[in-house]
């Protein structure tokens, strides 16, 4: 179980400090599918990065399976079963797709296993397995390889930051099927940052983050109509401390 208690994250800005996350508390139960959504700049990515350890929070704590992991490194969290799919993954000159999958799996994978993970993200494995993860791949291809590395890690908690960004409609459909399959088989807890209705509708729970705080949380039926209403009026009633 993931527990976030009174988490805050403040960074230095030109006019003093800026609060990116403010007193965020939430719990994600095991094997749940949770979507974090909300306006751009609201703190979603910062929250996910804080859970992975990429950002160090300035206050509060994070517990994973009962252990306080707030001060643990990214590596230590990865070794405890947390993985993270970057919104804009890096490229690696000279490193092949197969190498990256092997690192993710922590062992030399069989050809078939490596190909399975690529297929799950809509890539034709034969065409990609021996390619370098470099500029010869499009943004969408790198993104799908990134997601495949998270799947290959077989972590207890999989965090994805906007997995839909840069991915074509056909691959996206394959990807949502994969998320659904992981959820149905109870293979992992999934925490996804997304704005995509199709992903949002898969969720057990939606957490709305705005202005660095939890603006609302609940089931799809409870939260999604409010999101739609916001988009119709062009004004986020869900944002905290904001008068429309």
């Amino acid at each position, binding site marked *: 179980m993931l527990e976030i208690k009174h988490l805050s994250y403040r960074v230095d800005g030109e006019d003093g400090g800026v609060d990116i996350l403010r007193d965020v508390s939430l719990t994600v139960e095991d094997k749940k599918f949770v979507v974090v959504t909300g306006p751009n700049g609201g703190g979603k990515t910062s929250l996910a990065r804080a859970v992975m350890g990429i950002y160090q929070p300035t206050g509060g704590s994070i517990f994973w399976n009962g252990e306080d992991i707030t001060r643990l490194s990214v*590596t230590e969290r990865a*070794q405890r079963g947390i993985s993270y799919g970057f919104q804009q993954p*890096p490229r*690696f*000159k*000279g490193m092949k797709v197969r*190498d990256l999958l092997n*690192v993710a799996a922590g062992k030399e994978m069989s050809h078939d296993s490596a190909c399975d993970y690529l297929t799950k993200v809509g890539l034709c494995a034969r065409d990609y397995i021996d390619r370098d993860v470099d500029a010869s791949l499009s943004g969408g291809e790198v993104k799908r390889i990134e997601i495949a590395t998270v799947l290959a890690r077989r972590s207890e908690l999989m965090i994805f930051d906007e997995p839909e960004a840069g991915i074509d409609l056909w691959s996206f459909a394959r990807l949502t099927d994969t998320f659904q399959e992981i959820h149905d088989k109870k293979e992992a807890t999934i925490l996804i940052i997304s704005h995509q209705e199709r992903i949002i509708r898969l969720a057990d729970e939606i957490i709305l983050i705005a202005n660095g705080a939890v603006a609302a949380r609940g089931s799809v039926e409870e939260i999604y109509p409010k999101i739609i209403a916001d988009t119709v009026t062009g004004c986020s009633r869900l944002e905290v401390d904001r008068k429309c």
Partner: protein
Amino acid sequence: MLNEIQKNILAIVADMKGTGEGAVNIRSDGQKAFRRNTEHIVIESKTDKDGIDIRIAPGTKDESVHIPVVLTKGGFKDMVYNDFFVGEGADVTIVAGCGIHNCSDCDSQHDGIHTFYVGKNAKVKYIEKHYGEGEGEGKRILNPQTVLYLEEGASVTLETSQIRGVDDTKRYTKVECRGAGSEVIIRENLLTHGDQKAVSEMDVFLSGFDTKAQVISRSVAQDASAQIFYPRVSGDNKCFGHVQCDAIIMGSAKVRAIPEISCNHVDASLIHEAAIGRIAGEQIMKLMTLGLTAEQAEQKILEGFLR
């Protein structure tokens, strides 16, 4: 008989177990240590200077030549001239690594001048690895020169790499694609560390009609080491050339990349790219999210980059 140090170096620089297979010439501390010819590949000692002639018969297919050099005598300086005559239509792999084991306080040095005459439609893959080891204060110095003349339709892939432990190197590579349709691919990987110095110069002349050259340099400069990379490609006919220099800089190292392209013909098309930078933090972070430590991540990135 080869001792354990020699065997170890041969394995590193030439992937050889013992005396390997195919045509072989092992040079150790300035002397011929072992030689084997085959039906199609004949190696002969030069009579006017130190070195060998390697004659590969026309039409030779899928054969290899290994001509590694090992220096284990501290303070030894070696200079050798090796000429390769690759017959028409041959398709061979040539492996020519050099390793220095220097436990003395005097400098050890090997200068190898390799000249290739690559016949019509011949295909050559040339692999050269350089490596140094030993606890002595003496430097390990390697200065290779590689000169290639390509006839019509000839194709050469050069894969050169400096693995580790070479204190000082001045590399010079010259390629003349003078035959129509000839092409060369040069892949150079270079690692320097400590206060090592490396200079690599190249001249590629695309003088034949419809010739091609691709130069891919990948280098890593660690600690306080310094590198200079100076590839020059000249297009004197309808041709295509691409120079790509990528370097990762670490610690207080210094890297200069000065690619130069000269078009002397209206149908010559030449491109160069150069990039020098540190390992991106996001790359390290990504591999850490996959369970590697920062040090392991860095090593993994360098391994891939220099592959």
